């Protein structure tokens, strides 16, 4: 199967002729009729692909194509009126021929984007120029989306999105800009692009857990969300709750968390009523064993609290501060430290002060406990400061809690015992029932066997 098409036989001859008769400078200088024809010829020429895994083959031809691509880039970016209607087909064809390919299997199946060097695209010397050309084409003042939409259609975008899985960060960077431009210029494709990104993310979360371009796609989404009209459509809210929030569960969260948190905050800035479901969602997916992720979650919570409305804050303060109280008493000092830093944030501090009656009882027990027993001195010091701040906010409540602390602990222990007792009783009840049934079954059985023995 010829995945990489072989060169046509007369290719070299043709190229030499073209280049010999029409050197670079003449393309721009030729009369407009000739120019157009030449432009298209060169575009067609550049549809020929070369095998870059073989670094010694076709060196001359590779160089000619590189030079030609360079020439095309310059031609479309320095001249006006060269992107005429008849050229669109050839332009998109040339771009498609070069960039659309099935990405090869990763050299390293256990590729860890945080640790390993990515495999770079071998044909970059050509592909880079094609991407460059593509961008100049899209950004040219002559570019007309109404004509281009005949060629840059859903299928084109679909293929473009698949390329975001490229391991080469340089390629993903180009793709990001390209897709952003397309989203901006082709109104008819917007819904489709969003839906496809949606699908890519869902596959990433629930099926493969692998997609190299998540961060780049989120970055584009960040600016897309920014432009959403109000009130938000149900589709967008669904995207937030069913895609972006579950995305926090991904193994490689560190690679795109900044972009993800940005998207989430963008949503909340648009529509504050989303705060409660978002925070509840984050609490549901709160990391259980991965401390690094927990630190990221805390970071995101702080970003959200930075923009939260006091009325929304009241709705989630209880579950949220129960989680924060757990984080504060984490034995991983970075988690505890990150949570305690909330008390350095003026706005959060003011929210806490407003709601001190609710928050202090939630936080008190764990703060009190760690102030006595955390292994890390920095944490203990931070906790002292936090306790002091809280005490200043409501001294009376603080004193009450201090004096009832012991009784509270004992009550908890008693409750614990009661629970065990209940389960034990339940277990006994079940055994009793089981035994009843067994006995009747056994009697039945022995009755049967004794009769059969007779």
């Amino acid at each position, binding site marked *: 199967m010829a995945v990489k098409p072989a060169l046509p036989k007369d290719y070299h001859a043709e190229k030499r002729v073209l280049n010999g008769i029409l050197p670079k400078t003449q393309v721009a200088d030729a009369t407009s009729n000739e120019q157009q024809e030449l432009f298209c010829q060169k575009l067609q020429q550049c549809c020929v692909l070369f095998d870059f895994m073989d670094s010694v083959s076709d060196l001359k031809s590779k160089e000619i194509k590189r030079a030609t691509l360079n020439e095309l880039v310059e031609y479309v970016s320095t001249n006006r009126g060269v992107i005429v209607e008849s050229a669109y087909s050839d332009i998109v064809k040339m771009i498609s021929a070069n960039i659309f390919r099935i990405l*090869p299997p990763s050299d390293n199946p256990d590729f860890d984007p945080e640790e390993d060097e990515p495999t770079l695209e071998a044909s970059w010397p050509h592909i880079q120029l094609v991407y460059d050309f593509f961008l100049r084409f899209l950004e040219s003042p002559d570019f007309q989306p109404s004509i281009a939409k005949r060629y840059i259609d859903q299928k084109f975008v679909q293929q473009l999105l698949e390329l975001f899985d490229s391991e080469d960060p340089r390629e993903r960077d180009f793709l990001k800009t390209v897709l952003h431009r397309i989203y901006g210029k082709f109104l008819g494709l917007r819904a489709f692009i969003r839906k496809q990104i949606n699908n890519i993310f869902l596959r990433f979360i*629930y099926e493969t857990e692998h997609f190299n371009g998540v961060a780049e796609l989120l970055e584009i989404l960040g600016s897309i969300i920014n432009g959403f009209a109000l009130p938000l459509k149900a589709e967008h809210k669904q995207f937030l709750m069913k895609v972006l929030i579950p995305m926090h569960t991904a193994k490689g969260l560190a690679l795109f968390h900044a972009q993800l948190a940005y998207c989430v905050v963008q949503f909340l800035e648009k529509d504050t009523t989303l705060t409660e479901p978002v925070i509840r969602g984050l609490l549901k997916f709160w990391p259980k064993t991965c401390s690094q992720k927990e630190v990221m979650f805390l970071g995101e919570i702080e970003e959200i609290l930075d923009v939260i409305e006091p009325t929304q804050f009241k709705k989630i303060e209880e579950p949220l501060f129960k989680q924060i109280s757990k984080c504060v008493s984490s034995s991983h000092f970075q988690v505890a430290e990150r949570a305690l830093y909330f008390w350095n944030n003026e706005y959060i501090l003011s929210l806490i002060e407003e709601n001190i009656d609710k928050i202090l009882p939630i936080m008190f027990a764990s703060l009190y406990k760690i102030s006595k027993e955390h292994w890390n001195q920095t944490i203990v010091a931070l906790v002292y400061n936090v306790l002091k701040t809280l005490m200043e906010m409501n001294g009376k409540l603080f004193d009450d809690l201090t004096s009832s602390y012991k009784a509270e602990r004992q009550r908890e222990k008693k409750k614990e015992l009661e629970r065990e007792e209940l389960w034990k009783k339940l277990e006994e009840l079940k055994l009793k029932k089981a035994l*009843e*049934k067994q*006995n009747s079954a056994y009697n039945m059985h022995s009755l049967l066997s004794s009769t059969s023995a007779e």
Partner: protein
Amino acid sequence: MAGAAGPGSGPGSAGRDADDSLYPIAVLIDELRNEDVQLRLNSIKKLSTIALALGVERTRMELLPFLTDTIYDEDEVLLALAEQLGDFTGLVGGPDFAHCLLPPLESLATVEETVVRDKAVESLRQISQEHTPVALEAHFVPLVKRLASGDWFTSRTSACGLFSVCYPRASNVVKAEIRQHFRSLCSDDTPMVRRAAASKLGEFAKVLELDSVKIEIVPLFINLASDEQDSVRLLAVEACVSIAQLLSQDDLEVLVMPTLRHAAEDKSWRVRYMVADKFSELQKAVGPKITLNDLIPAFQNLLKDCEAEVRAAAVHKVKELCENLPIEGRETIIMNRILPYIKELVSDTNQHVKIALASVIMGLCTILGKENTIEHLLPLFLAQLKDECPEVRLNIISNLDCVNEVIGIRQLSQSLLPAIVELAEDAKWRVRLAIIEYMPLLAGQLGMEFFDEKLNSLCMAWLVDHVYAIREAATNNLMKLVQKFGTEWAQTTIVPKVLVMANDPNYLHRMTTLFCINALSEACGQEITAKQMLPIVLKMAGDQVANVRFNVAKSLQKIGPLLDTDALQGKVKPVLQKLGQDEDMDVKYFAQEAISVVAQRLRKLDFPVKDSEEHRAPGPDKNHFLRPGMLGEDTGKFLSLMSRQHKETERLAWLLRGQ
């Protein structure tokens, strides 16, 4: 039947302990609201306990509605719930009431998390079997339809897995509806749903009438196989295996083969990889004729695919493909149409391909026979034995027994030796470890003489390897060799060399001597142990390194059973007693342990009568107490004992059968 007995006994027992029966549901509700996930999880896992305590009626009326309405929880809890409900039929009153379990499972089948959803579908499939045909149409099929037309993709994905379980028992009208729903999911807008449908296509085809397969499934298959997403197309390949099994040769040729041919040349390597990976199944499904005409050419292409992953997957199937060819003409086909490609792959640029090839190529010997092996395969083996990649060499060596059966290993021994020596000294310890594992096998096949001459020194060198795992493996290797070559060989070649190491300046090597003695003493027998090994061990008790000393104690304990009273009393005991007074805690500990074992042994030797009563292994044997002698006498007690040990589910299953 369980269904008839259940409802009758339920209310009765609930009435008897009315106050007891009040609290289970309260406990559950309380526990399910606990802040600690672990506690919530625990209570869900004991759901069957609660249901049993409640009785079938209240389980149906109170517990299930509660679960259906109030569950919004962490996925882990939901997973446990989905799993539990699959085994719940007996607890709600048997098959007549199985449909009560559908509502909670339905909502679990729509959650986001795949693991939960899959488990819910699994439980639903299980429960579907317990439905009567009437209940199936009244309750189960409507549920499948609801899921199949759900808004969010998750419910539609779940529906895909449920068609095949309800189809066979449905009426014709309903069958047509089910097919219609499946059809629309195959062309769903969301690729996730199409993937789910594609992965269930084969399973669904199997339960359909042959006509429906031809008229409806085949077009669906063709559509999915040409989907725009390669992740969908590759699943169609899997379905192809099932569909092909259902059709006649002629139908196959017309309906399936064009698509399969296309898949083998798909532009996405993932699809081609799938074809390669499923090749043996495909071969069996399409039969010998199509294999020869279509699959072999496709296979040749896969063997020279441009992606190494595809080549490697195809190479893995070479042996199976050849084995499954019709015996008549097999040799010619392999020689003319497969072997030329294999020859090229021996020098493939990708090492994974070569490793894969080395793991299967030896299997061809038995298929091709002696002469072909010598003429055609042997050169390939020899080339691979010289391959730069150690895994390739290792795979050849580890499959030597195949060659041995056909042509004997001698043909290879000249090339084998350098390969083994090189692997034995490979920089990666895992490679060294792997080659050690094959030493006993090689020794058996090459014979003692060859072994002594060429390989013995290697085996000894491993004893002083700097990686512990290698030294440990080397010790075990020696034991296996002694078992193979006998004690005499051990005495002349192995034991002296091992014992010399007792004077090595490196304490790790001195310990190796002890480990070797532990491993070898039994294989070498009483005489060598007592005369040659024991003196050395005793001498080492004075070692300045504590680790050596406590290993002396361990060794003495180990070889104790092979020594007679005199040696134990006169030599071993004093040394152990001295070690028992050692300044090092660990030495003391192990010495004392050894003393007690030796003392026991001595007691036995003094009163040999007892020996026959006791088991060979000293120390209490826990199994004694659970002898099945009790079974007939006190069944009630025994059963409750048993049930406490068994897992919950097993116990319930037992109980239900008891009803």
